[in-house]
């Protein structure tokens, strides 16, 4: 792969991710509005928010670590995009595999955790301790799902997984061949988004939006950008593992939006779980389905 092609990919993939992410955030807010019988924000609202936050005149930072953490968090998220193969652009998918991807997803949360810690606000610290606990909750089922997929396809490199799923059209999709594993994966993806029932670490009423308590201006802008990337990443990862990845954009986009739409549709009707309930619920249901799926895969 020559360098110009690679350079185009390195620039293009995060950009696409950002744009698709923006649309997803818009979808999130529109769905919430429609459920609350409201009209909902204008089409460019997510963009307006981000530009407004970046164009704040005065910015407050709590020390160098707070600033560097933001760069690392955003950098981690952008780096993750490059390893997510999308139709036509494989990026660096051969250089790292599924496990690398899952670990690259942890860098933004750790970077954010360090930045919030530097803000020296206990609301933030409580939020981060809950976020890491929630990470334990959804990461175990996610890893079981990853193990299942890797075992089923006999490989952990994403292009090969996609190729294996696209070999026989719809019938060889992950969701068709390992439905239980796909269900467990979906619940784990749901929790990864950190939306309503699992939103304990951004609980506005209790800990004043947790980690975001001291984020203002460009710091909060970075968090909004990261939210876009995160929605996109969850959608694409799930599609890559279970919905046969992307052959063409016109079939790829609906799949990602469908994957992201399901959790977002359900999230607005739920109250918020306590931390230990998140753990128990995720380990019981997501873990249960994932283990069942894994057992099926091993049996085959």
């Amino acid at each position, binding site marked *: 792969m020559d360098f110009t092609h690679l350079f185009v990919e390195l620039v293009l993939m995060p950009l696409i991710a950002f744009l698709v992410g923006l649309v997803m955030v818009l979808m999130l807010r529109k769905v919430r509005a429609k459920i609350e019988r409201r009209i909902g924000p204008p089409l460019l609202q997510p963009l307006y928010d981000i530009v407004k936050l970046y164009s704040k005149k005065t910015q407050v930072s709590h020390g160098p670590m707070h600033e560097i953490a933001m760069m690392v968090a955003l950098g981690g998220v952008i780096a993750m995009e490059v390893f997510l193969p999308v139709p036509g652009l494989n990026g660096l998918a051969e250089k790292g595999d599924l496990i690398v991807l899952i670990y690259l997803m942890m860098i933004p949360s750790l970077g954010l955790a360090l930045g919030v810690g530097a803000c*020296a606000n206990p609301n933030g610290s409580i939020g981060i301790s809950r976020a890491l606990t929630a990470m334990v909750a959804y990461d175990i089922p996610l890893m079981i799902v990853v193990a299942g997929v890797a075992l089923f396809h006999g490989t952990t490199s994403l292009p090969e997984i996609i190729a294996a799923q696209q070999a026989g059209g719809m019938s060889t999709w992950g969701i068709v061949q390992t439905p239980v594993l796909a269900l467990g994966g979906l619940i784990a993806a749901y929790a990864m988004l950190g939306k309503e029932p699992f939103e304990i670490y951004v609980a506005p009423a209790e800990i004043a939006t947790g980690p975001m308590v001291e984020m203002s201006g460009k710091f909060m802008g970075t968090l909004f950008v990261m939210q876009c990337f995160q929605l996109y990443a969850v959608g694409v990862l799930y599609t890559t593992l279970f919905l046969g990845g992307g052959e063409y954009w016109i079939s790829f986009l609906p799949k990602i939006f469908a994957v992201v739409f399901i959790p977002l549709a359900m999230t607005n009707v739920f109250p918020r779980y306590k931390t230990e309930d998140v753990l128990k619920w995720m380990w019981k249901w997501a873990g249960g389905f994932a283990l069942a799926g894994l057992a099926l895969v091993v049996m085959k």
Partner: protein
Amino acid sequence: MNDLDLLLLVSIGTTAVLFAFGTWRWAGALGTLLYALQLALLAVMRPELPLASGIGFEVLGYRLQWSLSGLGWFFAIITVASALFSAWFAAGEWGQHRRNLRLLHGGLALNVTAMLILLASDDLISLFIGWELVSWASYLAMVQRGGPAMDAAYRYLVYALAGALAVLVAIAMIAAQSPALDFGSVRVWFASAGNGTIWTVMLLTMAGFGVKMGLLPLHLWQPAAYSESPGPIAAFLGAISSRMGLFAIIVVLAQLIGLERLGNLPVAFSFWNANEFWAWLAALTLIVPTFIALTQNDARMLLAWHGIGQGGYMLLGILIATPLGVSGGLMHVINYACYQAALFLAVTAVAHRTGTTDLDHLGGLINRMPLTYVTMLFCIIGLAGLPPMNGFVSKWMIYKALLDAQMPLLFVAAVIGTLGTILSVYKLIHNTFLGQLRLEHAQVNEVPISMWLPMILLALIVFITGWMPGLFLDLVDEAVVAIGITQLPHHLGGVDLGNGGLDMLWIVGVLLAAIGIGAIVYFLGNRSVRVGQFDNYAGGQILTADVPYQYSHQFYAGLLRVIQPWMRGGMAWGERALVSGADFLGGAMSGLYRAAPAGAYLLLAVLAALAVTLL
């Protein structure tokens, strides 16, 4: 007089010199130079491995000889390197404050010598002699601070002695049946031995060597012992001392019994084989300590508990018996040595300045001790096993090997261990460096260069070898070949297997580039103003210095409420039961001697003997 004899001689010389000049101001510097010399000797020795040493003598018909194989050489490199960094740290200002460092410097040198003797052993008896010397040397290293340190060291010694005797029984069992005790003939004997004898010998040796490595049921002594020893010594012990147990286990499991034989050694009335049995024990050793580390309130105890957990990773890696798994496990040994030593040094630096390592009474030291913060940051990312650092590479290799070897549940167990590590390392760095600065730490300033330079160097090694893992993988190849496993094809960036490889050059490169982009996006916004810690949202409350506005006690309260019931300390209860049993029996026996008149015993005994023999 080949290089190995020279090395042993130099290290014995170092011990003698450092014991003699221990209290001299420049003892630490002298020690560092001598360790550097030993390291140079090791490096020179590399091409001619396995190197047989001239020393050797015969006692009671058994030939004792020493020769350094690739595996021994690999561990020797780590031992001498960690000793070098510890001595360098102790030579700095940390040492000037302490009055008598003879025992510290001498103890460290003695430890290195004992370990070299163990690593170079070529037959079971010299292995056992080396093993005992190492146990006693580390006892000497742990016992320096007196008081609670002595209790912890005493507890360690009883464990180590019992373990050593178990190994002695195993050696005696082999000696009873096999003609000679050097590794070659023992390997032959094992090949022909029946499953029963192999199981007993394996259980005894694993119990003995498992004590030092902290395998699960025998790990209770390690946290207290390592956290009570003085700073640099704790770094040395944490980094390499418990890996001697792993070395001995590799010698027994891999070199003597052979990993494939292990594979088809059935466990009684279950479908497991020995390999899986030990792998699951390693997995347990990996999970339980990391979640116990979560609940610790002392920084050093937290790190010591991690020492046990990471040992589980190494053993798990090796037991997978594929080139990827074994080199992953061995690379984890050297990775772990780097960041664990640096973490212990960083915690010692914090203790040196603030006087305490209690995580509930620290906080906000980031703007007072930035360099120590950077060291701890690099090393906790390494310990947690996240991408830019070397910890990730070895963990990735272990995960990939587990997946390729069709062991998904072990893979999940390893991941649970990693998650536990991520949580507890964040608690460590958050409670120490982040959050609100306390009034009493307002005037604390950074440790001098003599202390932060070794730490920063170790942190840099952690990062650089994370970026270019090939550097460590070359060292690991020596050991992998010595174990008899085919060498893993690797390049500077990492490993590229058929089904999904790892190229850290690209991953870390992209990560740094992306962080660059993040920086650019960050600087789109206007210039920011740095505000103090009291300019914070507190729901309208005006913050003052006397009311600590910090969340660090019970850091993961939610998680603990879920896993607290599972952690009732079953093993600790088991240990107490054993001790009270011994007390009870002791009471009974001494009562026997004290109470009854001697004559009555004799009559009773004779009557009993007559009854038995005549009837």
